[in-house]
């Protein structure tokens, strides 16, 4: 027997309250039918006996206290999954919007996923060659890693993400192909369009699943978007052994949607009004990256987030940084100088890098070179701040060398063209070439044996 509950008791933002509901369960999906014949979906988020609180995915616009019939579906939020999903364009809650019809499901996946057993994880070790010197040499991306791009409005994070997708090569490709899951959350139409066009241009559209929740789409749907995207990614990676790269943009919009939803539920706010469970919520997304035993596939995440006011201590980048395995930070001042990609290497980090590089992966001296570049570039910053006080002319000869090194590093190493695909060898050699600007005694992070082999002083 299917019961329809007529009317609702209370409407507050995206939440509706029903009373006298029997037999519902937590997180169950309900169908809400309006008088005009349209249906909307919602999810039960709180229950007190027979009083239930439902979160409506589309907006509550047009819903009145009497004009609805609500029906329990008896299912949690699930998503139809099949290999055919590759190449499709879906909305934020996983429904096709490309006019090619419904997806015939091979199985249904609960979008909340279940946590991976830490024992069943495989520690990620294989690096992904992105062809971008800074990333490959200093912030190496590893298959199964979650490595966000911390950016700001107006910076070239989208270009960088596209370039990574286009150039990414996996060192030993033993899975069955490579695919991209692209989740847009609250992004402008132009941005979604830019990605779509770029994917088409490189002819990779048939390897991409796009989930689009644009800036004017409902925020509740935005909360579901990354969950749906990751459900697709996990399915393709762990059941079809594919190497899946998930790009999620913009995580800040996602967090703001969560804040909006939380405040309409009347929850106690934490820092900057974000709900106290923001960390756990973000973790439940980011932790869905990785590799597991018994499958050759992997889920690699590149979330993109814009830091409001370029503030890295804002709760969203801050909590993200605590969960993800490093970060790629973009710098407005580098972008201002025309450097592309404007990666600020000092605060950038890849935590999994140390085990995925070196002998057998890239080159034996890779870690030492990276340490030395970081350390030397940190001294460049000191020298520059001194120069800004006493003037560059007054600097000691060694500090002047550092200034020279810093400029060369930014102009030649960090800077590369959007279409330039550098091999790892090229990048490492370039690193050594630039270190040649500095006298050998300044290179204190590298063993003498390695210096003997690679260090060549730059000719004056």
């Amino acid at each position, binding site marked *: 027997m299917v019961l329809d509950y007529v009317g609702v008791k209370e409407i507050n933002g995206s939440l509706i309250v029903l009373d006298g509901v029997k037999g*519902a*369960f*937590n*997180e169950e999906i309900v169908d809400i039918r309006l008088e005009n014949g349209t249906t909307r979906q919602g999810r039960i988020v*709180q*229950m007190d006996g027979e009083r239930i609180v439902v979160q409506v995915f589309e907006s509550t616009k047009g819903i009145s206290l009497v004009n609805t019939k609500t029906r329990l579906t008896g299912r*949690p939020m699930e998503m139809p999954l099949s290999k055919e999903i590759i190449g499709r364009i879906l909305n934020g809650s996983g429904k096709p919007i490309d006019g090619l019809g419904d997806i015939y499901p091979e199985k249904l996946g609960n979008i*909340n996923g*279940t*946590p*991976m*057993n*830490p*024992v*069943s*994880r495989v*520690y*990620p070790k294989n690096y992904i060659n992105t062809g971008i010197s800074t990333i490959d040499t200093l912030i190496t991306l590893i298959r199964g890693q979650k490595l966000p791009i911390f950016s700001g409005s107006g910076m070239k994070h989208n270009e960088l993400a596209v370039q990574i997708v286009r150039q990414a090569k996996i060192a030993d490709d033993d899975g069955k192909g490579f695919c991209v899951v692209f989740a847009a959350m609250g992004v402008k139409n132009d941005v979604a369009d830019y990605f779509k066009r770029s994917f088409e241009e490189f002819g990779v559209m048939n390897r991409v699943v796009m989930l689009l929740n644009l800036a004017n789409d409902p925020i509740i749907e935005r909360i579901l978007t990354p969950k749906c995207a990751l459900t697709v990614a996990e399915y393709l990676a*762990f059941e079809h052994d594919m190497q899946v790269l998930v790009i999620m943009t913009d995580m800040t919009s996602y967090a703001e949607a969560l804040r909006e939803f939380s405040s309409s539920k009347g*929850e*106690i*706010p*934490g*820092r900057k009004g974000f*709900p*106290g*469970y923001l*960390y*756990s919520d973000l*973790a*439940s997304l980011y*932790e869905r990256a*990785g590799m597991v*035993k018994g499958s050759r596939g992997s889920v690699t995440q590149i979330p993109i987030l814009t830091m409001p006011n370029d503030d890295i*201590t804002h709760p969203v980048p*801050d909590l993200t*940084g*605590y*969960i993800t*395995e490093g*970060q790629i930070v973009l710098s407005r001042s580098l972008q201002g100088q025309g450097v592309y990609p404007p990666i600020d290497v*000092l*605060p950038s980090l890849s*935590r999994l890098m140390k085990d995925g590089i070196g002998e057998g992966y890239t080159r034996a001296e890779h*870690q030492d070179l990276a*340490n030395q570049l*970081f*350390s030397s570039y*940190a*001294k460049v910053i000191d020298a520059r*701040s*001194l120069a800004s*006080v*006493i003037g560059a002319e*007054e*600097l*000691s000869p060694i*500090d002047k060398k550092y200034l020279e090194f810093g400029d060369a590093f930014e102009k030649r190493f960090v800077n590369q063209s959007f279409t330039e695909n550098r091999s790892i060898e090229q990048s490492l050699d370039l690193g050594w070439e630039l270190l040649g600007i500095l006298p050998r*005694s300044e290179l*204190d992070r590298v063993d003498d044996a390695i210096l003997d082999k690679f260090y060549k002083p730059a000719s004056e």
Partner: protein
Amino acid sequence: MDNKDVIFGINGPVVTVKDSRSFSMMEMVYVGQQRLVGEVIRLSGDETTIQVYEETTGLKPGDAVVGTGEPMNVVLGPGIMDNIFDGIERPLAAIEEESGSVFISRGVSVPSLDEKRLWDVHVTVKKGDKLSAGDIYATLPETRIIEHRVLVPPTLSGEVVSVKPDGKYRLNDTVAVIRDHSGAEHNLTLCQRWPIKTPRPVNKKLPADIPLITGQRVIDTLLPISKGGTAAIPGGFGAGKTMTQHQLAKWCDADIIIYIGCGERGNEMSQVLQEFKELVDPKSGRPMTDRTVLIANTSNMPVAAREASIYTGITLAEYYRDMGYHCAIMADSTSRWAEALREISGRLEEMPAEEGFPAYLPSRLSDFYERAGRVETLGGKQGSVTVIGAVSPQGADFSEPVTQNTKRFTRCFWALDKSLAYARHYPAINWMTSYSEYFTDLDPWFEKEQGRDFIDFRNKITAILQEENSLMEIVKLIGADVLPDDQKLIIETARVIRVGFLQQNAFHKEDTFVPLEKQKLMMKTIIHLYEVSKGLIARNIPLSRIISLGLFDKLTKMKYDIPNNKPEMFKEYEKEIDEALNSTLTAEFN
């Protein structure tokens, strides 16, 4: 049963039951058809509030809630070592086997410890023996290096009425029976249960006068911690908290390591699992896992179990302490635990204090850290629990409540510094803002074991670093060139100390662990070079000439160039310094 207790309301991990009288505070309960584990956290006349340790999707009002009559507890017995548990002592490897899935499904019921495995038990008591709480009645080899000593539970004492012979027994087999003073008989098996939020009793606490040797120079010399001490490692993301914790877990001289991954990354836990299997403990020659227990409650696992994981960890540590072992707990990270408190407190609609954290945050933190200590156990043995907690301050701002409150209850504060981490100076412990309160307790030990000069060298090193710090204020404004030579010498020596001594390479075979003796000789050599150079400068020999000899650069690399087992090489270094500087002096005056 007629008056069955059923779920009334559900809000995230919090479940309420109406009009029940059958529960007690902190009681462990089973919720719903899948028997999810939960704990009673609030009782009022008409409503019982329960936090559930698993995902609540699919629960219904009307589902049964069954009490266990006991507080949230863990099983203590052989099989803990070399195992990996979640926050409420469920064995993750066994769950993987049982469920056949790489994901953690809900309501999986697996005993905490292997109940089928046979242990080689040696019963150490005989009929008629009087046993009191904490006495050993059986021993067995748990791993190759850890002897498990089975203890009389702290609540029990009496006379042995029967014992089994030595042999192979399972976890729940009775090996002895004792009769308490009221005449009741109790079966003693190989295990006991203990509530995780109650500290295990001890005879008395002992002074913290033995250091925990970590092999990390900046800690052992400048910021030492004692066995049974407490330390906080605060640092923003990427500052190296986890790396530091891993290094300590690998190399510190505790007998047993409990590593709690509390709300942290899944990949990090698999890294620990893999690395510790491959690493060999220098003392025993066995894999590190033989002395390690992992508690993994990653950030995406249920938040209530994250709150429990810290207590589970310290209870396991106390149990091994009671056997007479030195245990060290690495809690990574206590901030995630505090956030779990905040999250649950928010769901209970409690009045928040600072930054949304509940007002009882400081008391919970102090309860936890006070469970550390070096003690005399009930059985008269000496053991210790050292707690090293990582703190992840929001926005790397040390003034936030978790860091500030932790600072009050720990005696070592190893502050990680972003700018050091950016320059890849690891461990990125800032020597200026960090402190250790254990110097007065530990100095007698250092004096006895390493000699008075160890303390002298350390003080000199600290003084040079202090002086450099104040000089750098000037250098930042006007550059180093204008300083007189004696101050430049301070800066140059401090550079050697920072790069050659404080910075330590965790990936270098020799440098990852350095014995105290080498640490002392390194300090000695640096101080020697400093003092001889100072003498030369006093005789108007320019510093640039001294530096051009390359001695300072040589000392920055001695951590790599001198193997740990060749301390005699330091003599040669000193000789070389003396000769080179002497000849400079002679050349100058001829």
